[in-house]
């Protein structure tokens, strides 16, 4: 786009912006629009939407603040950034709740009109921060967004409500100008969003253009910035994707590669509902979605569909898993394929529904009665949710077992550029389906196992000679008849465990990113903390320290070389957004004194805090050097 010719355009390699406003101000929409156009500009990016659980808290109140942060860069980045370089605060409450994060000397853009006595009071300000000198450490731009907005709408037919709402478009326009984003895609998107209300579309566009023009023509800004496209991304065609969308696509891809219809039994829950909603849109792919009366019915129907020969999944969050536990035990007992997705959120109980945590690992591992082993895998980035879903399906189908796939709120709503995969290049799951064939001998053994995988036959209704009964009562090894025989129960317990353990032979080895030097400290992560860990490790290395990094996708069973990897380092540091759940498992399994870095805030780790933690461990190890 054209810049003011007198204006200097400064090149920067990475920028973090946070939009913050009232939950009615359209901050998520603004953030998403800015993200889309940034993705199209070829930057690497990561986003962190952060919104309240309440649909609409009282306007201007502190709990009602909704935020959207993104980092974009001319190189590969792993996080939505620690401290924003730019904070757009639409009202005093947004300023109060977000100012502490803003980098020293950062750019602060505030909607001056919103700093009324009433709003200041709601935000618990005794004096107006725009006037009392408390913002001296920042580059503050006070812009009367609310009053400028209607000026651009004098010719518009928009009602007052729509006019007030449109002020977020001013902020978006201004940011697009400031970071040299192309405006055409946003214009197209706004038109598409309000296709059924052209007046609203044009009104919003007018405000958006006014925001761009404001940046261009006023002299309050010293310069605009430019962030070049990312250099080091693998070649190919990209799109922007969130974890929940990638997960929905991953389930569809798994079904296509298995040549099975997809069945999703679900009950709406934050932050998992998007997956249900997305899959419900794709009926022409043969996808069946079933919104059940509760979580128990959701997973029950999925298990029924699996029995009937569909690729079945249920998608929920921790409290939903708690309700599904009994059915998951049944799924372990009947040995049918089932993909169980847990998009973790803050707990315990209802906890922090819109915030993120990694606190359900032990629930996934042990949250059932009896010895009920279940494979567990975890997605690491938003785009990786796609691959994780395909991998969950592969294990579920191959081993005839429920598989727990762990995602979390950060991955679910966060976005990143995604290299669009070639579907035909994905693993062929259809050869693994291998439904049992008709049997005329009258001696079908529903629990006779494949000697390699220990999987039992997937015998679906409709096939002559395979009539059989399954259920939660213990089955006799082989025949599947009810058995209360003590030794049989012991044998079946061992077989079910051996079946899960054996998956380890079928997993890629845990790889270690050694970096330079001879690291004595290994940082081991799982799930969504991969980005912050990778960013932190990079920073530690830049400081000249050697540190190794590894990331677990498979948490049950662990890759077979996990013990060796752990033993190869003097210290293993495991950062987790929980109180040490993976640490507990590793210590128990490998008798290694792993150290935890544990922080449960509902927010993803920042690279900065992990950098500090890692540096401490590296220093401590060097003091203990032999």
């Amino acid at each position: 786009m054209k810049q003011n010719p007198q204006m200097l355009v400064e090149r920067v390699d990475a920028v973090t912006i946070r939009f913050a406003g009232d939950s009615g101000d359209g901050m998520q929409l603004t953030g998403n629009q800015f993200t889309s156009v940034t993705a199209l500009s070829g930057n690497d990016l990561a986003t962190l939407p952060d919104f309240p659980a309440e649909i609409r808290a009282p306007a201007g109140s502190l709990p009602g603040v909704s935020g959207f942060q993104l980092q974009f860069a001319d190189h590969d980045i792993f996080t939505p950034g620690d401290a924003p370089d730019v904070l757009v605060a639409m009202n005093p409450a947004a300023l109060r709740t977000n100012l502490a994060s803003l980098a020293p000397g950062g750019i602060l853009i505030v909607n001056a009109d919103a700093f009324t006595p009433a709003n200041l009071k709601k935000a618990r300000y005794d004096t107006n921060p725009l006037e009392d000198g408390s913002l001296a450490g920042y580059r503050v731009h006070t812009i009367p967004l609310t009053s400028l907005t209607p000026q651009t709408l004098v010719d518009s037919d928009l009602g007052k409500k729509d006019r007030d709402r449109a002020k977020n478009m001013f902020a978006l326009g201004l940011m697009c100008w400031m970071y040299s984003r192309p405006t055409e895609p946003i214009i197209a998107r706004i038109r598409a969003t309000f296709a059924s209300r052209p007046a609203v579309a044009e009104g919003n566009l007018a405000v958006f253009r006014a925001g761009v023009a404001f940046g261009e023509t006023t002299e309050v800004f010293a310069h605009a910035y430019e962030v070049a496209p990312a250099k080091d991304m693998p070649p190919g065609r990209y799109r922007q994707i969130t974890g929940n969308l990638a997960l929905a696509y991953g389930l569809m891809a798994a079904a296509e590669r298995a040549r099975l219809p997809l069945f999703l039994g679900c009950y709406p829950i934050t932050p998992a509902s998007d997956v249900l909603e997305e899959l419900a849109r794709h009926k022409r792919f043969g996808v069946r979605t079933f919104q059940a009366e509760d979580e128990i019915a959701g997973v029950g129907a999925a298990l029924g569909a699996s029995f009937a020969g569909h690729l079945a999944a249920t998608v929920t969050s921790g409290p939903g898993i708690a309700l599904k536990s009994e059915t998951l035990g049944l799924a372990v007992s009947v040995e049918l394929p089932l993909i169980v997705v847990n998009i973790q959120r803050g707990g315990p109980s209802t906890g922090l529904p819109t915030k993120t945590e990694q606190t359900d690992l032990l629930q996934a591992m042990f949250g059932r009665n009896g010895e009920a082993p279940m494979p567990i895998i975890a997605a690491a980035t938003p785009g990786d949710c796609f691959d994780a879903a395909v991998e969950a399906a592969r294990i579920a189908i191959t081993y005839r077992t429920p598989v727990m796939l762990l995602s979390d709120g950060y991955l679910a709503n966060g976005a990143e550029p995604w290299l669009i995969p070639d579907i035909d290049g994905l693993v062929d799951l259809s050869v693994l389906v291998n439904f049992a064939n008709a049997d005329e001998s009258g001696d079908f053994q529903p629990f006779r196992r494949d000697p390699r995988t220990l999987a039992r036959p997937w015998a679906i209704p409709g096939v002559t000679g395979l009539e059989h009964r399954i259920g939660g009562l213990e089955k006799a090894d082989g025949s599947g008849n009810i058995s209360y025989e003590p030794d049989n129960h012991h044998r079946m317990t061992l077989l079910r465990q051996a079946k899960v353990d054996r998956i380890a032979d079928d997993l890629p080895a845990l790889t270690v990113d050694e970096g330079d030097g001879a690291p004595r400290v290994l940082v081991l992560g799982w799930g969504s903390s991969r980005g912050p860990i990778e960013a932190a490790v990079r920073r530690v290395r830049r400081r000249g320290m050697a540190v190794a990094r590894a990331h677990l996708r498979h948490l049950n069973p662990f890759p077979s070389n996990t013990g060796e990897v752990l033993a190869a380092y003097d210290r293993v540091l495991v950062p987790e957004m929980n109180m040490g759940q993976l640490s507990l498992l590793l210590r128990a399994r490998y008798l290694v004194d792993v150290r935890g870095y544990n922080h449960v805030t509902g927010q993803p780790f920042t690279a900065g805090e992990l950098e500090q933690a890692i540096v401490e461990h590296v220093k401590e190890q060097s003091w203990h050097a032999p």
Partner: protein
Amino acid sequence: MARTLTRADFKSDQEVRWCPGCGDYAILATIHSVLAELGVPRERCVVVSGIGCAARLPYYTDTYGFHGIHGRAPAIATGITSARPDLQVFVITGDGDALSIGGNHLIHALRRNANMTIVLFNNQVYGLTKGQYSPTSEVGKVTKSTPAGSLDHPFNPVSVALGAEATFVARSIDNERAHLAATLEAAARHKGTSFVEVYQNCNVFNDGAFDAVRGNRANQIRLEHGEPIRFGDHGEHGVVLCDEAQLEIVDVVDGDEGALLVHDAHREDPSLAFALSRLSHTPRGPTPIGLFRQVSRPVYGTELQRQIDEAVGLRGTGDLGALLAEGDTWTVGA
């Protein structure tokens, strides 16, 4: 050409383990006969159950079977029948399983109208857990868990089903083989969720609970579609709709049926069927037996398939590669 199946073909090789004298035996035998009568191949038949004495029935039936968990059979069956509308699906349940722990799933299965036949064995007591009161037990029932008498107001299963707007609701009795068989067969042939309450005698924990109507035709109000509702040894009683919008039992004078209610099982509005179900809240007095309601409503699994077919018809089978590349994309050069 497959040979015609008989009742014996549906008996599994598993030893039946119910108490001697249990009403379940008669129901099991009747279900086997009905399966043979339906002409559905064994491999296309799936019997799903929850937990309880009745829930063991799938093991004794040589079809596909799924013994699930307490109260959840309708959910599992909904998954099976939604995935595979070609299957004949039965849900076998008891009063505790269906109306207590599974009450939620039962009402939603009924309103949703997925294609399955729910057979509820009602013995007004918990059998498998050895004799606690159930959601159909009468107030004041003394059991091991209610030594001073139960305080809970009981459910009338037929009223519950009609309240949930089930499209097929009937009641029968374990030892009335012909009536039970005809009722179950009609239920199995019904498109959608059919619900059959069967009075079942638990001779160990609640013997004789239904003696007032079981084997006492004089006390049974046999519902026949299109017929005036009369009962008694000589049809000396009848049912009329009185001014207060409720049903009343009257004497039939000189065989005059003029004022009697003519049973219409296919009436869309369930109000009269519901009123009939209230004639006997617990089966101590004259109790309606037979088909209360059968109406036609879209079937869940069929509708799901229709939506898929329509979507494919409108825009063709989905192309996943194209879907993934939809919207704004950009290319990073090699």
